[in-house]
């Protein structure tokens, strides 16, 4: 049996970190979520980092969290597309570090991806997987450290493709979503999904995947950059593809 986690610390209480903290708390797991003052992470045996998708920011936050939580704690990242191995290599204990990738919306999505880097210890993977499996309605999937892992690797090219087709005038934003929701039965159309993810979060993630692969399917479509530059980040800013139709 893997050792259970007694206290979870979360750094970065945005779209994902905030929702994960609320979910764990509702599931009866003691959680501390912090943004700037990491000292409250002392005593946590699992720290989940959910700060923006920037390599240097994540490494700085993870290193500080590792120092506060001490050598007994497991460290995890919710990165969508950065390499777990590369992030771990910049930390003191890469064997105690893994990807722990939840999906959005946190309370209704079923799978949580547990991603070992090259240096992650099997015990770390086993503990995170057992933890995810113990949560209500969740199922752990252990997947390899490839750009986007499982779901984001599939999702990013699709979302980019829709944004480009929208910019190319294939149909209006609402019509695109309606066609995909009614024609394919997807719960959420792609543009509403982007608004929920956050256009900035998607841009950062797909840029990271593009940098790692050179695969043009991950290249951010120009409209995505323009939207982010204009501060149209989706639900979080009250203005995105669907939250306000004009752009």
């Amino acid at each position: 049996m893997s050792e259970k986690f007694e206290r979870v610390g979360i750094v970065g209480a945005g779209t994902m970190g905030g929702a994960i903290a609320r979910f764990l708390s509702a599931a009866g797991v003691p959680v501390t979520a912090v943004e700037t003052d990491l000292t409250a992470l002392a005593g946590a045996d699992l720290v989940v980092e959910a700060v923006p998708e920037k390599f240097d920011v994540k490494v700085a936050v993870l290193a500080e969290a590792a120092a506060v939580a001490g050598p007994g704690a497991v460290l995890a990242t919710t990165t969508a597309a950065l390499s777990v191995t590369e992030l771990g290599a910049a930390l003191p204990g890469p064997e105690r570090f893994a990807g722990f990738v939840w999906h959005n919306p946190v309370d209704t999505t079923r799978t949580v991806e547990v991603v070992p880097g090259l240096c992650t210890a099997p015990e770390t993977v086993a503990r995170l997987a057992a933890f995810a499996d113990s949560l209500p309605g969740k199922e752990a999937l252990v997947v390899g450290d490839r750009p986007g892992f499982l779901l984001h690797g599939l999702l990013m090219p699709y979302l980019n493709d829709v944004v480009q087709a929208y910019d190319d005038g294939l149909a209006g934003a609402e019509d695109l979503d309606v066609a995909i929701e009614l024609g394919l039965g997807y719960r959420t159309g792609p543009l509403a999904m982007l608004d929920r993810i956050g256009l900035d979060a998607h841009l950062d993630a797909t840029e990271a995947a593009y940098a790692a692969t050179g695969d043009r399917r991950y290249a951010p479509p120009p409209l995505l950059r323009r939207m982010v530059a204009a501060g149209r980040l989706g639900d979080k800013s009250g203005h995105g593809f669907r939250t306000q139709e004009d752009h």
Partner: protein
Amino acid sequence: MNNEPRTVAVLGAGTMGSGIAVVMARAGHRTIMYDIDEANLRRGLDSVHGFLDHSVKLGKLSQDAADTAKRSLSGATDLRELAPSDIVVEAVFEDLALKKELFGRLDDIVSAHTLFHTNTSTLSVTGIASGSRHPERVVGTHYCNPAPLMKLVEVADGRHTGSPAHEATVAFLRGLGKTTVVTKDRPGFIVNRFLIPWENSCIDALENGVATRDEIDAAVKGSLGHPMGPFRLLDIVGMDIHQQVATRLYEQLRDPRFFPPPMVERMVAAGDLGRKTGRGFYEYDDTRLFGS
């Protein structure tokens, strides 16, 4: 022209033609199903009746309404019988020459106000319209399978489609209770345009060992909110059909995302087409092949 009863001819009594005929007859339109093949026509008419009976059994339709719908339905194997049509909805084989020729022959049979709808999935509306001397009355109306249950119809104008035909088409489809989205005459419109690369990328991920069949299906269904994972869906669609649609879109778009991954060709070669052959990504025992 929303709710007025019209005379609607459905060309092709296959999967889609039968479904579209249900939609028309159920909405109170006089519906003529046409097929070149007598046996296929019979099967199509039977399947419309079967669908209506089943709806009655499920309590979704009154016996009266089903009887009325059946009375408004007739079959034809002679194109001249389609003369009274206000609208013809073409759902024959996905073959450009065939569709063009059919519309060209209909020019001389139907009235000067008849709308020509094509249900093509992957061909150009403009290309099909070029078979008619009245491309201004040709509109792409892409239904989803099964047509009686799926609300969506994608509407795409060809280069020469007139706005009266477009407006009348949208109003007519809304009168059928359909939700219309307006898109462009581009390969795959919206639904297939995004479905095909998506399915291809899932097959690639499987072949490249990103995750297992069950993991990918679980993640896509459980965390993206799709009604089923990509491999369950492909097994229902059929690998041969996926290969055909993907190849047709690739041939027009020349974008590698549309090209069927090598695994598709191997599965087709092995006869592992999905549910219909008892094996695709999953195995089934409730099929014609392995059933008694």
